[in-house]
C-alpha cells in the first residue's frame, strides 16, 4: 500500500501560485487527553488559490470536518502551519483569531442546515449577524442581506421567517447567503448538500458554480465524489486522516492512483461509463485493508 500511496500522492501544492488564499503544510491534529490521544489528521498539506475550488472527499471519520475546523481555528493543531490570506495563524490566540475572523476573509457553511441557524433568530437576523459583528450599521447590513438572499435565489418574504418555517433546501441557501454577506475570499463548505434532496442539491451546486465564477475560492468537503466532481477544479482525497491523493478533478476521476480513490470512483456508478463491478470493488477493498 505504501508504494501505491507514494504513486498516488500527487503534488499537494498543485494549483498553488504563491498567492494562495489558504496554505496548509504538514498539519497534524490529535483529539483526546494525552494518554488516549487519537490521531485525526497526519501530515496534511494543501493549498487553495484565489478563485479555485478544491473538493475534499473521504469517508466518515477520515478527518474532513476536522481539517475544516482546524483551518477555522475551532480545533487546535498539534503541528503544522496554516496560512490564511498571507497570515500565519499557527500561534494565534483567541483575540487574534477574532480579529482575523471579523475581517470575514474565511467563512464556513455547516453540514446540518437546521442546526446551523439559530432557531430563535429570523432569517434576516441570522444573515446580518456577521455584518453586525464587523460593526456595519443595521440598515446597511439589512440591505446587504437582501442582496445576498437574492443571490441564493430566495425571496425577500423569507426574511421574517424562522428557520423552523423553512424547508431544508431553503435553510441551506440561507446558510450559504450568511457565509457570503461578508464577501469572503474563501468559503469552506462542510457537506453542504448531503442533507438535501436532488432538486435542492442541484440548486446549491449551481450557486457554488456561480460563486466560483465570481472568483470566490471554495473548499467543498463531501463524502460523495459525485457532488464534488462537477464543481471542483482539484480534488483531495483524505483516508484515515492522511491526504492520499491530490490532483486535477478530471485526473483523479478518470485516472485514480491510490487504491482508496479507485475504490471511491468505482463505487460511484454515474461517474464512469464502465464502473467497477462488485468483484473489482471487493478486490480493491481487500487491497486497501491489506
Amino acid at each position: 500500500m505504501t508504494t501505491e500511496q507514494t504513486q498516488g500522492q500527487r503534488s499537494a501544492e498543485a494549483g498553488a501560485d504563491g498567492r494562495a488564499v489558504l496554505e496548509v503544510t504538514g498539519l497534524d491534529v490529535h483529539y483526546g487527553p494525552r494518554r488516549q490521544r487519537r490521531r485525526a489528521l497526519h501530515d496534511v498539506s494543501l493549498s487553495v488559490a484565489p478563485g479555485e475550488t478544491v473538493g475534499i472527499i473521504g469517508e466518515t471519520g477520515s478527518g474532513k470536518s476536522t481539517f475544516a475546523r482546524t483551518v477555522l481555528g475551532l480545533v487546535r493543531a498539534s503541528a503544522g502551519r496554516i496560512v490564511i490570506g498571507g497570515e500565519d495563524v499557527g500561534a494565534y490566540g483567541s483575540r487574534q483569531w477574532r480579529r482575523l475572523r471579523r475581517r470575514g476573509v474565511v467563512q464556513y457553511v455547516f453540514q446540518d442546515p437546521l442546526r446551523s441557524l439559530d432557531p430563535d433568530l429570523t432569517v434576516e437576523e441570522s444573515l446580518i449577524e456577521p455584518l453586525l459583528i464587523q460593526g456595519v450599521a443595521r440598515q446597511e447590513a439589512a440591505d446587504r442581506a437582501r442582496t445576498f438572499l437574492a443571490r441564493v435565489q430566495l425571496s425577500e418574504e423569507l426574511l421574517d421567517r424562522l428557520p423552523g418555517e423553512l424547508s431544508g433546501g431553503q435553510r441551506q441557501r440561507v446558510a450559504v447567503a450568511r457565509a457570503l454577506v461578508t464577501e469572503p475570499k474563501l468559503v469552506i463548505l462542510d457537506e453542504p448538500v448531503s442533507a438535501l434532496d436532488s432538486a435542492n442539491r442541484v440548486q446549491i451546486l449551481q450557486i457554488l458554480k456561480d460563486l466560483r465564477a465570481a472568483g470566490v475560492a471554495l473548499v467543498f468537503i463531501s463524502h460523495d465524489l459525485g457532488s464534488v466532481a462537477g464543481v471542483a477544479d482539484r480534488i483531495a482525497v483524505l483516508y484515515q486522516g492522511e491526504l492520499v491523493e491530490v490532483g486535477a478533478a478530471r485526473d483523479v476521476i478518470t485516472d485514480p492512483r491510490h487504491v482508496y480513490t479507485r475504490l471511491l470512483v468505482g463505487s460511484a456508478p454515474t461517474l464512469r461509463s464502465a464502473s467497477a463491478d462488485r468483484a473489482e470493488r471487493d478486490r480493491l477493498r481487500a487491497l486497501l485493508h491489506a
Partner: protein
Amino acid sequence: MTMVRRVLSLTSGRIAVVILTLIALLAVLGPLLAPQNPLATSDNTLAAASGSHWLGTDYLGRDTFSRLLDGSRVSVLGSLEVAVMALVVGAIPGILSVYLGRTFEWLTLRLADTLVALPFLLFAVAVIALLGNGITQAMLVTGALVSPLFYRVARAATLAVARSPYVEAALVAGASTGWIVRRHVWVKVLPPIAVALAQTIGVGFIIVSSLTFLGIGVQPPAPTWGGLLASDLGYLSYQPWAPLAPAVLIMITVWASNLLADAIRDVSGEAGRAFVNTRKARANRLGKPDPVSTGGA
C-alpha cells in the same frame, strides 16, 4: 422589548403582569396606606373583622390589616433580594462557567457543591454573626444558598447550546463571548431561569418568616406576610380565618410569578415564536373573509 411584547400578547402574561404590578404598588405604598399603627397593641385581642379593624386584630390587639399592608414592602423586597442575589451569584456564573475556561468552571462547580452541602440555618446564623443582623444580610445568605439551583439550571441550558453549529457560526464570524451569550445563549437560558425565579420568589416569603422566627433578618415586632401567617397559625382555634389574608397574598404573588414564568417559557424558543405567529395568523384570518370555494373535486 420583543420578549415583553410577546409575553403581553398572552392572556396569562397580561394577568401575571397586572397582578405583579399591583403587588409592587402594594410594596411601595403599603406602609403609607396602613390605617392604623401596625405596632400599636391594644386590649382588643383576637377581635373579629369590624369597621375599625377590617381584618380583625392579632393576639396582642394589633390591627391585622395595617400589619399586612405595612409588611408588604419588607416581604416583597426580601423575596426579590433573594431572587436577584441567586440570579447574580448563580445564573451568571452558571452561563460563564461554560466559556471562561476550566479553572473558573472547576472553582464555580466546587463552590456550588459546597453551598448545596452547607446546612441552611447554621450557615445563616454564622454569616449573620459575621456581617451583623439585618434583612439585607439575611436575604443575601438565603440568595447565596439558593444560587446553586440557578447555577445548575443556567449551566445546563448553556451547555445545550454552547457547542451548537449556530454558535460556532457566530464564532467563525468573529463574535466575542459576550456577543454569543447576549444573542444566542441568554434567550435559551431565560425560560428555565424564569421558572426557577418564580419558585424562589415563593420560597423567599417562607424563608423570610422562618428567619424572623429565629430572630434573624426582620426583627419582631416588624410585620411580614410570612410572619403574620406563622403567628396567626398559633391561634387557629380562636381565629380560624386569620391566616387567610396573608396566605392569599402569598399565594397570589407566587401564582402570578409562576404564571409570568410560564408565559416567558411559552413565548421563548422556536415553539414559542411559532405559537405567537400562529396566533397572529389566526387573528389575521379572522379579519378577512373566508376564501371562496372554486368548486371542483
